[in-house]
């Protein structure tokens, strides 16, 4: 029986490359208008999966359905189905021609009328904020600009389904936010269904409606971001780029908490009870940063200096050296109000209950 409720569905996909299993029994369904993130470390099979969904590679076994149509990998007419799908590759490939012609290509191969091509390309370039770039050669663009052109190429034909392979990997924060904005806009306005491979957890959390965790070619978990990452496993922590991950020796305190010695004279108090070697993390958002020492209920308070600042648009990530390096995330507004700079002296505070074991 065909489940019509899914826009795209993979059933028991397997892919082998000369005996090596790249995908094992991968099954999932994505609803129309949904943004579905595939997260997993490099080599987990994300790219292979997306290539199969885009009919660039045939699975060894298993089927893919777009609504009630089963993808036929041996068909001579694959482009008919493929024209309903847009794909943005991790490795940006652009043609040696102007930005305008690059974006126009998707429409030209579909035989779209020239006047309409001009209009659509221009409004698409507007959307990715490259309107003034239309006459430039695409190969002369920066990485971020090139990836925005690639996004425009895929979107200009108004695909009902968009596949994205790490669309913002290696982009600077400004370009990341433009790409994310465009994706949100398109998903909202055109109800475009998206399957996005990423290992950027913040992105998965912010953009995706549902998430599948892919590891060694198998789907480990599938569901909403929160329910999956409530209790991260060691494996998740490794690739999820959990920040502020520390290891140390824990001992019980008189108050029933744990004191963990992480080295460099730094002791972290945690609400859990565990003795011996532990690995734990503190979310960058959970750390309060101040320019004066705080009198608060937070059991952990450290003094340090800012060693690195990365601007992520609306938020700023700071690396603070306080015995160990902590990553702290604060809003741009607080950042500006406190007039912070590299080497500014700051105080960090977080509650014992915000220290989470892995």
């Amino acid at each position, binding site marked *: 029986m065909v489940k019509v409720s899914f826009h795209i569905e993979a059933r028991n996909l397997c892919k082998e490359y000369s005996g090596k299993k790249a995908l094992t029994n991968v099954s999932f369904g994505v609803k129309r208008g949904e943004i579905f993130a595939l997260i997993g470390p490099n080599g987990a099979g994300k790219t292979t999966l997306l290539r199969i969904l885009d009919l660039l590679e045939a699975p060894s076994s298993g089927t893919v359905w777009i609504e009630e149509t089963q993808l036929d990998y041996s068909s001579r007419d694959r482009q008919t189905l493929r024209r309903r799908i847009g794909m943005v*590759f991790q490795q940006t490939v652009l043609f040696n021609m102007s930005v305008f012609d690059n974006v126009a*290509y998707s429409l030209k191969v579909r035989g779209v009328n020239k006047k309409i091509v001009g209009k659509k390309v221009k409004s698409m370039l507007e959307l990715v904020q490259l309107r003034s770039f239309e006459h430039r050669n695409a190969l002369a663009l920066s990485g971020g600009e090139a990836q925005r052109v690639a996004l425009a190429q895929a979107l200009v034909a108004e695909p009902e389904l968009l596949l994205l392979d790490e669309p913002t990997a290696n982009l600077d924060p400004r370009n990341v936010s433009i790409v994310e904005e465009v994706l949100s806009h398109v998903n909202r306005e055109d109800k475009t269904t998206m399957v996005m491979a990423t290992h950027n957890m913040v992105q998965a959390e912010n953009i995706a409606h549902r998430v599948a965790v892919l590891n060694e070619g198998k789907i480990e978990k599938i569901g909403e971001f929160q329910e999956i990452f409530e209790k991260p496993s060691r494996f998740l922590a490794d690739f999820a780029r959990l920040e502020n991950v520390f290891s140390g020796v824990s001992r019980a305190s008189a108050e029933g908490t744990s004191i963990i010695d992480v080295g460099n004279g730094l002791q972290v108090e945690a609400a859990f009870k565990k003795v011996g070697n532990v690995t734990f993390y503190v979310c960058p958002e959970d750390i309060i940063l101040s320019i004066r020492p705080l009198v608060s209920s937070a059991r952990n308070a450290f003094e340090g200096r800012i060693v690195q600042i990365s601007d992520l648009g609306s938020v700023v990530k700071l690396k603070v050296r306080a015995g160990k390096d902590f990553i702290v995330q604060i809003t741009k507004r607080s950042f500006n109000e406190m007039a912070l700079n590299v080497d500014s002296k700051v105080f960090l505070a977080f509650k014992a209950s915000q220290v989470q074991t892995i």
Partner: protein
Amino acid sequence: MKMMIEDSFLEEILNITLLSLKVSGSAVLIGSLIGVPIGMILGLGRFRGKQSFMRFIDVTLRSFVNTFMGLPPVVVGLVVYLLLTSLGPFGPLRLLYTPTAMIITQLMMVVPIITGVTMSAVGSVEKAIREKALSLGATDGQAAWMVLREARMGVLTAITVAFGAAVSEVGGIMITGGNIRWVTRTLTTAVVVEVELGNFALAISLGVILLSMAFAINLALTIIQLKGARW
């Protein structure tokens, strides 16, 4: 008297230079017409289908091309000589010691070079460009066309390399052309003779002309490559 010597001297140099251009130019022109399409077909991997027979042909052709890219010109000259000599199979055509024989010799040299360089130029962009075009909705034919379009600079390189090899070649055309004054003497074969005769002044000026020619052609092609990013 001195003027006359200078006149005929210049005239001979001009004759030699033009013959070099004519022989190597014709060989590269004809060689491109043969080598570029074969290189493109091989580069596109059109033979790499599921049928083992086609794959066999693909592998064989590739190995041939790669082997013949490094063919010693004197060996080519010898083979062409044996084919064209009056006792050889094409003897009756009476082509030995003519510019045509020299063109044939250089043609056999440049076809593998043009095919091989075109093949690798197309092959290097083939996967990425083809998949990109396909993902944007192109048919197989449209995608193949885009691959060729993107490999155009590589094709230009193939032709440049081939011309460079042809115009500086000496062993092959010496055998099949015979280095006959006013008829089959080129810049390279003339240099050999003039050095043997001890006419170093003439040999050096011929060498300078050869170098200048190679430089001018490479300069032109480099300019095209730089500008060509736009077409």
